[in-house]
């Protein structure tokens, strides 16, 4: 069984975002890069599926500048993935081109029995690559997945939507499953795991190998702006009863939200 996990490298949540002076993007200098948090759930679920399936290979795959994205792939291999593919390109691509590249790279491989990904990347917050990819691979998708069970080629996949409602799907073959928090608890990379990962195969492709170019992008971002400065908080004094009374007055008369 061949399992693919698509991962993305993103700026750490705690990283302070600075903009380029001309507003054309963010200043990547000083950014600490991590594996997208949701992708850790995807890697973990792939490793669990490998355990159930027995004879299986988990391949992690990512699109982005090789010199940094390779770190995220090594992290996934340190968790237990068997090998990696990096699709090298100068900058991150939009969801459409990313999915085209992933699909083309996966189609080059002899088999694809299952694909995992995170439900969204915390940088562009698009949540679109998994569905684009599934369409390009001509297989079903399920996103925001918080439950996954595999038995003899069938998969029962739970997706959580508004109001705690759960949609449970049964899949009879390959699919793209995009992981949400709550699906599992990702394992930590052990020290021996990290040592082993350094020797695991990491193959490299570039966009032109896949017949693609970064100018294929459908969506781009311009005019970056920081949120407007918030006026300072208005503290409400007094005992709890007085505070409550004043707060309700302000919400009603000043903020007009009631």
């Amino acid at each position, binding site marked *: 069984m061949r399992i693919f996990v698509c991962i993305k490298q993103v700026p750490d949540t705690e990283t302070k975002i600075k903009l380029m002076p001309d507003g054309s993007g963010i200043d990547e200098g000083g950014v600490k890069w991590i594996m997208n948090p949701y992708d850790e759930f995807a890697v973990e679920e792939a490793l669990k599926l490998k355990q159930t399936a027995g004879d299986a290979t988990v391949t992690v795959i990512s699109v982005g500048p090789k010199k940094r994205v390779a770190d995220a792939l090594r992290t996934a291999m340190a968790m237990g993935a068997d090998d990696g593919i990096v699709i090298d390109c100068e900058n991150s691509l939009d969801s459409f081109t990313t999915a085209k590249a992933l699909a083309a790279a996966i189609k080059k491989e002899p088999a694809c029995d299952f694909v995992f990904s995170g439900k969204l990347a915390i940088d562009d917050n698009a949540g679109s690559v998994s569905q684009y990819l599934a369409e390009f691979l001509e297989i079903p998708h399920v996103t925001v997945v918080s439950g996954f069970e595999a038995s003899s080629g069938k998969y029962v996949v739970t997706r959580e939507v508004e109001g705690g409602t759960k949609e449970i799907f049964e899949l009879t073959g390959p699919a793209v499953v995009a992981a949400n928090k709550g699906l599992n608890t990702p394992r930590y990379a052990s020290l021996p795991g990290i040592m082993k990962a350094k020797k695991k195969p990491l193959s490299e492709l570039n966009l032109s190998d896949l017949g693609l170019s970064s100018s294929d992008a459908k969506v781009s971002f311009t005019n970056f702006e920081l949120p407007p400065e918030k006026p300072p*908080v208005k503290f409400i004094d007094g005992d709890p009863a007085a505070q409550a009374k004043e707060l309700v007055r302000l919400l009603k008369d000043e903020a007009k939200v009631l």
Partner: protein
Amino acid sequence: MSQVFVFCEFSNGKLKKGSTELLSAAKTAGKKITALVIGPGAKDIASQTGEYGASTCFVCDDEKLKSYHPLAFAQIASQTIKDSGCNIFLATASMMAKDLFPRVAAQLETGIASDCTDLSFSGDDLIIKKPLYAGKCKAQVQFNNSPVKMVLMRPNQLPVNTPVAGASVEMKILSTPDFDSRMTVKEVSVGNSDKVDLTEANIIVSGGRGMKEAQNFDLLNQLADTLGATVGASRAVADAGWVPHSMQVGQTGKTVAPSLYIACGISGAIQHLAGMSGSKVIVAINTDKDAPIFSKATYGVVGDLFDVVPKLTEEFKAALN
């Protein structure tokens, strides 16, 4: 003239507010509007789309479409969007739309922007902004090589017009496609909450570690009931198992944008602020006057939530009656 296609969602026989916002925005800009409604009862919704400005409403009204099936819904939507000849597509960034429309975008070989917060029309074009990097900045979305510009808007961002009673709309009936057998809906377990979901809520009351233990959320439930609000929580509280993950607001939880967000006993870690800083008015109640939550708050109450929240519930009751 550019033509706008709006995917409309409904519940309990009524268009959802997010859908009325999008119809209103397109109507105000003077666009020709085509709507699509899918699911049992869709026929009864068509007239409502007309009242908000749609001139044509496609409906696929079938009991078989009671539950969301990504492949069937994608087939219906792709075909209808293509046939309509529209060049702008709008939908609310609901859980269904966020799952469905990237797939539709793939079928139409076009671009999509999800979770947008700003939308305005400028002649035949539209100006769209969305938050990036967990809301730490915003940027304008540009579409290239995209036959249809697909935009998923967060709810509660745009004004709603007064519906025009009796406005005419041409209803076009769609047939249900055969379902792809590789994927079947096994079960839908409806959540026990009769409240509006966090992502759509207009008022949210949220609790953090300062709640001390799970059963103290009763205090917040009482406050929320008074306000018609939905209850949320911080990651610490969800991770501790006091509340389900579905109630978590923040980076790895839900992104919310209510008119009023009341944070009780939440210190305001970056990852929480990422999920709620889009709220219009933020109230923070915390014993620590230096808590980071106050840097985002409109109104701050330094005090013990166990004293303040019950008083607040009383005051709201009095004010709203």
